[in-house]
């Protein structure tokens, strides 16, 4: 079935962004499909509209000095997700966070996790080789996979194994010997804290200053005395390779192009792509200088991306599910406005935390992927436990005193108080399509919540919306984007 322009643009927003909100639809419709693709994919030229620094959410240590904690960082990213005007940039950053999965459970330093997150974002749509090399030299990654303890004569295989198994080639495309030899190439790699004063650690204030200015706090360090300069045999080549050489060999490997092609397609389109799709994307990887943006353009220009097999057939991950709803209800924008108007950073913290917590309960805790392989996708997002959490997002949104409860009154205050009208308006608001029988169930839920009253007092609005959304969030249709 041929999609309308409106359907095409909402599909783009669901896949390249975090859902189609009414205001985004209104903005993108006049640009047309091509214009929307251009603005979403070439996002550098778009003002992100997000200027909150993580230090705005920082706390203080017991000496009264500023300290950035992981909790603040999680809220900061959640706020960026629910407000950004560059949704693809964040969707890609999340994709790479899953691919080059590093968890704060071990790294346990917010400035280090922030720098890792920034590095992912900066390289999100550029060259895969640049990203791979940046990741291999990133302090959080080095710490996470123990490359700082990988030294000449006593190699630690952790990074060498995962870089081949998970980040590039995939299992079965290298040998145990390759892992051991590659580990030698990465010996002596470490990091240090940057400091303006020689051999002095920066003070908490100085670190806060660096973060506020957007400067890196850590830098890569090659400890030459601990680096193994001997000859290594890796993937059929022999030489005095170092870590950069290994990254180069891995990025240029055919299997890497296929790994990245498959994962990108599965993240943005659908699971188990046809072999021809992998072949095409793999070719674009090499022809296009390993540029991720070129692969993305190929994905959205593929017929399959617009096919029945794709549109509204991908299981929403917790970010797709949660961030979309927050954006559609305008919660992020309202929070930012309250923060800017009142000059109070905390005004945005509550909604950001609630979005982050909802994602966490659905199985995606930002900055804490379950292990180095990242999260499992697709059906793995769906379990009885996570379905309960998806349903409960409605409860969390419309409880007393929440941001959405205030919105609810104004929403329903403007509409006629008929159950069918209310349901249609709510479905439109969250870009949902349901079968006729499910629409009846939702109308039923609406009536139950209003105790059969014809005229709805505005005070009942939150409860009514909560009931309709509870049922909608439980419906099979709403789990797909």
């Amino acid at each position, binding site marked *: 079935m041929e999609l309308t322009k409106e359907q095409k643009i909402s599909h783009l927003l669901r896949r390249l962004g975090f859902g189609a909100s009414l205001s985004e639809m209104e903005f993108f419709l006049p640009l047309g499909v091509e214009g929307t693709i251009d603005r979403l994919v070439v996002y550098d030229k778009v003002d992100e509209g997000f200027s909150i620094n993580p230090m705005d959410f920082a706390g203080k240590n017991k000496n009264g000095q500023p300290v950035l904690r992981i909790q603040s960082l999680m809220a900061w990213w959640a706020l960026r997700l629910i407000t950004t005007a560059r949704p693809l940039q964040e969707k890609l950053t999340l994709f790479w966070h899953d691919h080059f999965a590093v968890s704060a459970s071990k790294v346990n330093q917010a400035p280090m996790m922030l720098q890792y997150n920034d590095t992912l974002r900066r390289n999100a749509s550029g060259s895969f080789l640049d990203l791979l090399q940046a990741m291999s030299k990133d302090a959080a990654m080095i710490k996470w*996979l123990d490359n700082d303890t990988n030294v000449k004569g006593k190699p*630690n*295989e952790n990074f060498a194994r995962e870089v081949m198994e998970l980040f590039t080639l995939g*299992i079965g495309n290298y040998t145990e010997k390759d892992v051991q030899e590659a580990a030698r190439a990465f010996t002596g790699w470490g990091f240090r804290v940057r400091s303006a004063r020689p051999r002095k650690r920066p003070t908490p204030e100085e670190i806060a200053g660096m973060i506020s200015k957007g400067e890196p706090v850590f830098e890569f360090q090659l400890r030459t005395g601990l680096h193994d300069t001997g000859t290594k045999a890796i993937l059929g080549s022999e030489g005095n390779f170092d870590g950069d050489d290994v990254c180069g060999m891995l990025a240029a490997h055919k299997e890497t192009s296929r790994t990245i092609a498959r994962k990108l397609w599965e993240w943005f389109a659908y699971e188990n792509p046809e072999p021809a799709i992998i072949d095409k994307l793999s070719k674009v990887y090499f022809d296009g200088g390993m540029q991720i943006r070129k692969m993305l353009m190929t994905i959205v220009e593929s017929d399959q991306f617009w096919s029945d097999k794709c549109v509204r057939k991908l299981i929403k991950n917790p970010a797709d599910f949660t961030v979309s709803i927050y954006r559609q209800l305008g919660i992020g924008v309202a929070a930012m406005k309250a923060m800017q108007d009142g000059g109070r950073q905390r005004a945005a913290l509550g909604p950001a935390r609630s979005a982050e917590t909802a994602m966490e309960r659905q199985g995606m805790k930002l900055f804490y992927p379950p292990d180095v392989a990242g999260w499992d996708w697709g059906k793995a997002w769906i379990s*009885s436990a996570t379905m*309960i959490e998806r349903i409960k997002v409605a409860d969390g949104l419309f409880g007393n005193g929440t941001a959405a409860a205030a919105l609810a009154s104004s929403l329903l205050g403007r509409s006629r108080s008929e159950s069918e009208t209310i349901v249609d308006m709510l479905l439109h608001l969250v870009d949902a399509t349901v079968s006729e029988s499910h629409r009846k169930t939702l109308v039923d839920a609406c009536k139950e919540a209003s105790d059969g009253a014809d005229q709805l007092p505005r005070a009942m609005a939150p409860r009514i919306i909560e009931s309709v959304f509870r049922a909608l969030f439980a419906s099979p249709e709403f789990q*797909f984007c």
Partner: protein
Amino acid sequence: MSDDLTRRDFLRTGAIVALGLAAPPWLAQIARADVLRLSKGGKIDPDNILVVCQFSGGNDGLNTLIPWSDAEYRRLRPSLGVAADSVLKLDESMGLHPAMDGVFQLFKSGNAAIVQGVGYPNPNRSHFRSMEIWQTANPDKPEQYGWLGRYLDDQQQKGSANPVVAIELNRNKSAALKAKNASVPCFASLADIQSLLGDPDSERILREIQANDAPSGSDSRAVQMATKSALDAMSELNKSVGNYKSTYTYGSDQFGQAFKQVAQLIATSPKTRIVYIAGGGFDTHSRQAGQHEALLKGFSAAIKTFMDEMSSLGKAKKVTVMVFSEFGRRAAENASGGTDHGAAAPMFLFGGNLKGGLVGPNPDLANLERGDVKWHTDFRQVYATILDQWMGADSATLFGKSFEHVAVF
């Protein structure tokens, strides 16, 4: 006596199984139970409960069950080796990590069996593949359904499905419980069960919105099954679970919190036969000593309190706990004060109905394979033993071949 023997021989030929096919269903059920009881050992009971506890990340077997008197152990682990005088000694060569006092006590009272050297052919050192191998019980090729999922499918076919027969306490369902037909609910915590269902209307609407079954295997069907199994389990458990008040105190660590809820489930849900829990943090590539000690300490305290609570409920003889990890770790320590991915490791079993003690030869550290302890017992032998001698299943059918049992029951 002679009658018994004759009967047993008769059963062994499988004749009654054939007879059972023609017999009325209730008789077939009895016949089937008899076959299992007599031919495979006498511990099977319809009320038996299996708790599976997964150690994610690859637990260091050599620093859990320690060959404390082996000079080779000292040579391989000059800094990470646990001092001989602090080891909780089980015999003249093997002992437990000093943080494992609870396990030590269970071992001494005969409520713990430790199967040594468990692994599988061509050990895989990838976390993900090796975990998948353990969860699907197939080292040869990827398998769609888990080993417990296949067992549950088989049970469901025999008509004994119940929405809470198996439960995982985890946010995401592990591959071990993935089944073709049986839907296993998982809950992040038991508190979730009590908070979702308000009034009957709300449950009705949540059920209605699931609509007619989507095609089997489809993504929509997965959503329907997950929601329905949540609703079914909740309406079954909702009344009972919240009323239970335990008098036992568990630690605040992951194992303390998990076993506390397992006890709550077993105390209140008589139809539950399988509970699956998982704990992480075992991937100790660097600075292992403190981290590993904390994990073992938390687990050990939790399992001891749990078994005590089971005894107080009169359930100690009805529960078997099986602990596993995807692999052990390299025999030699690395330069980072940690250990890399290895192969064989011991498996721990707990319960009041076990034949306690150490099973199988001690690790031979002078004779390693690529730096790892060699396996001598296939993990599927342990699974088969539990399935056949505890759960009353037929492992040979489930696994496609039969595995020699290990002497734990």
